C-alpha cells in the first residue's frame, strides 16, 4: 500500500526551486526521509501535509489529494519541526484542545489526550504550563498531539530533536511499536543513525530531487562506483591478504591493527570466499567480518557526495 505518492512534483518559490520533478512512492511502514540541509525535505514535508500547494505535478496522501482536503487530516498526525506552542496552556489542555478539533466530544478528547500523554511519558508534567517545559518535554508533547487521534499515518519532522539519549531510544522504540500496531510513519531527519535505528527503508533527497528510495542495503549494492568495504579481524593478516588478493574482484587491501580492510567490486562472491576461508581454518581464526559502508551513512555520503 502506498501512503504517499508524488508524481512529477515541483515547487518553486519565485526563482528558487524547492523541489524539482519529484516522483516517489512511499510504502506503508516506517520510512526515513533523508537529505542534507537545504535538500528539499521541508518543502516535501509541507507539500505532503497540505501547507503548500504544488507548483506542478500532484501529491496524494493515503490515496487522496492533500491540498484543500482537511477531512484527510482525520487520518494523519503531523509533528512539525518548529518549537512553537501556546505557552500559556498546560500540556494536557493543549493536547485536549487540539484533539477536540478532530470532532471528539470533550470527554473523549480528554481521554485521548491522556492516553497520548501517557504514551510519551509526560503524565506527571501534563498539568504544568508548556512554557515551563524543557526542550525534550516540548518535543514529546508535540508528539502527543500528533498521536492523540490515533492516525493511520504519522508524519514526523525531526521528532527526536532536543531529546536526551535515553529518551531518544524510548521514542524510537515507541515509534516502532506504533508501526507494528499498523500506523505508517514517515520520519524526516538528517541524523542518520537515528533513522537507521528505526528503519532500513529510506527516501534520499538532495538539491530538490529524489536521489534514491528503497531499502538502504539494496541501494548500497547498486552503487557501483564505490567498491564495498569489508573489514576482517584476524591474527594472520598477511596470509589472509595474500589469499584474497588472488581474487580478481578485490580492488585494494589495507592493513590495520588486528585485521585488514578490503575493497571489492564483487561483494557477493567475496563474502562467499571469505566464508570458505573462515570455515577451512587454514589461516587461523577469522574473528569478525563487518561491512563499514553497508549502512546509511555510506549511502548518504556516496550519493550526496559529501
Amino acid at each position: 500500500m502506498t501512503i504517499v505518492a508524488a508524481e512529477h512534483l515541483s515547487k518553486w518559490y519565485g526563482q528558487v526551486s524547492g523541489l524539482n520533478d519529484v516522483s516517489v512512492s512511499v510504502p506503508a511502514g516506517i520510512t526515513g526521509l533523508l537529505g542534507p540541509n537545504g535538500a528539499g525535505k521541508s518543502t516535501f514535508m509541507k507539500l505532503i501535509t497540505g501547507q503548500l500547494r504544488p507548483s506542478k505535478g500532484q501529491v496524494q496522501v493515503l490515496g487522496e489529494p492533500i491540498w484543500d482536503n482537511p477531512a484527510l487530516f482525520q487520518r494523519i498526525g503531523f509533528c512539525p519541526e518548529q518549537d512553537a506552542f501556546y505557552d500559556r496552556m498546560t500540556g494536557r489542555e493543549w493536547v485536549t484542545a487540539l484533539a477536540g478539533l478532530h470532532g471528539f466530544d470533550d470527554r473523549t478528547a480528554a481521554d485521548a489526550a491522556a492516553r497520548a500523554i501517557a504514551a510519551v511519558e509526560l503524565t506527571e508534567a501534563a498539568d504544568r504550563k508548556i512554557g515551563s517545559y524543557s526542550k525534550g518535554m516540548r518535543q514529546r508533547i508535540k508528539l502527543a498531539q500528533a498521536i492523540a487521534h490515533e492516525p493511520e499515518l504519522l508524519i514526523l519532522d525531526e521528532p527526536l530533536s532536543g531529546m536526551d539519549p535515553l529518551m531518544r531510544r524510548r521514542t524510537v522504540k515507541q515509534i516502532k511499536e506504533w508501526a507494528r500496531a499498523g500506523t505508517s510513519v514517515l520520519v524526516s531527519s538528517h541524523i542518520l543513525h537515528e533513522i537507521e535505528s528505526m528503519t532500513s527503508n529510506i527516501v534520499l533527497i538532495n538539491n530538490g530531487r529524489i536521489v534514491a528510495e528503497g531499502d538502504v542495503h539494496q541501494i548500497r549494492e547498486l552503487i557501483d562506483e564505490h567498491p564495498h568495504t569489508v573489514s576482517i579481524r584476524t591474527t594472520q593478516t598477511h596470509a589472509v591478504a595474500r589469499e584474497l588478493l588472488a581474487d580478481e574482484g578485490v580492488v585494494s587491501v589495507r592493513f590495520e591493527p588486528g585485521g585488514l580492510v578490503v575493497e571489492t567490486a564483487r561483494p557477493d562472491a567475496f563474502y562467499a570466499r571469505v566464508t570458505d576461508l573462515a570455515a577451512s581454518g587454514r589461516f587461523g581464526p577469522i574473528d569478525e567480518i563487518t561491512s563499514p559502508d553497508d549502512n546509511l551513512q555510506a549511502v548518504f555520503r556516496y550519493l550526496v557526495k559529501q
Partner: protein
Amino acid sequence: MSTRPVPPSFAAGAVRVFGLSLGEMLWSRRTVFLLLVTGAPVFLALVARVVQGSGVVPVRLNGAAVDGGSIFGMMIWVFFLRFIVPVLGVFYGTSLIADEVEERTLTYLFTRPIRRGAVLVGKYLAYIVSTTLVVLPSVVLVYFVLVPLGQVARTFLAFAADLGLLALGLAAYGALFALVGAALKRPLVSGLVFVFGWEQIALLVPGYLKRFTVAHYVQGLVPHAMPSEGVATLLQSVLRDNPPALVCILVLAAVVGVTLWLGVKAVESREYVLDQ
C-alpha cells in the same frame, strides 16, 4: 481507534477554534493594552464628574456648558467611535491569522480536519467576544458615572443604541481587518492607512466617497450630536448625511458577511510559510 469521529462541520470547527482562541485572547498581553485603552474613558468620566460636581469649571462642548449626558455623547464620539472601535478592529482583526503565523502555531490548526476558513471564523468570534466583553462594560461604567440617575430613564434608549452600534462597529471593523490580515502581507500599515487616512478624508469630501467607509454607517447610528472641535470635525458635521438607521444596520451586517466570506476564501487559497 475503533470508530473515528466524523470531521467537524464548518460551524462546529469554528466553535472549537473559538473555544481554543478565546482564552488565548483574553489572557494575552494585548488585553493589558485593551484594558488601558478602555479604562481611560472611565477615568475621564470620573474626572468630569468630579469637576462638574465641584462647580469650579463648567465643562464646555462647542462653546456651551454641558451636562453629563452630553459629555457621555462626546465621549462616545471622540473616544469610542473615532478611536477605540477602529483601533481595536485593526489591532485584533489584522492579527487573527498573523499572530499564529508569527508564533508558528498555525500549523497545528491547519493540519486538523477542519476547514481553514473555520479557523478564521472561530478566531473572529473570539475577537468579538473578547472586545465586547471589555469595551461594552467600559461604556456602561462611563454612562452611569456621567449621567445622573434622574436622567437615566430619559437617556436609556439612546444608551442602548450606543451599546448596539459599538458592538456592530467592532464586528464590522473586525471582519474588514480580518480580511485585510488574511489577504495582505502588511496588514497593519494598510489598516492604519484605512482608518486614519482614507476614512478621515472620505468623510470630509462631499459626495459618494463616504459610502465606502465603515465609519459613515456606524456614525449614522449615533443618537448624539457630533462634537466639532476643529476644522476637520466641523467639516465632517456639516457634510454629514446620515442614511436611515435600517440602511446602516443592513450595510454593516453586509460588510461583516461579505468581508468574512472573502477572508475565508483568502485563507483557504493562500500558502502560509512559517519561519523555521
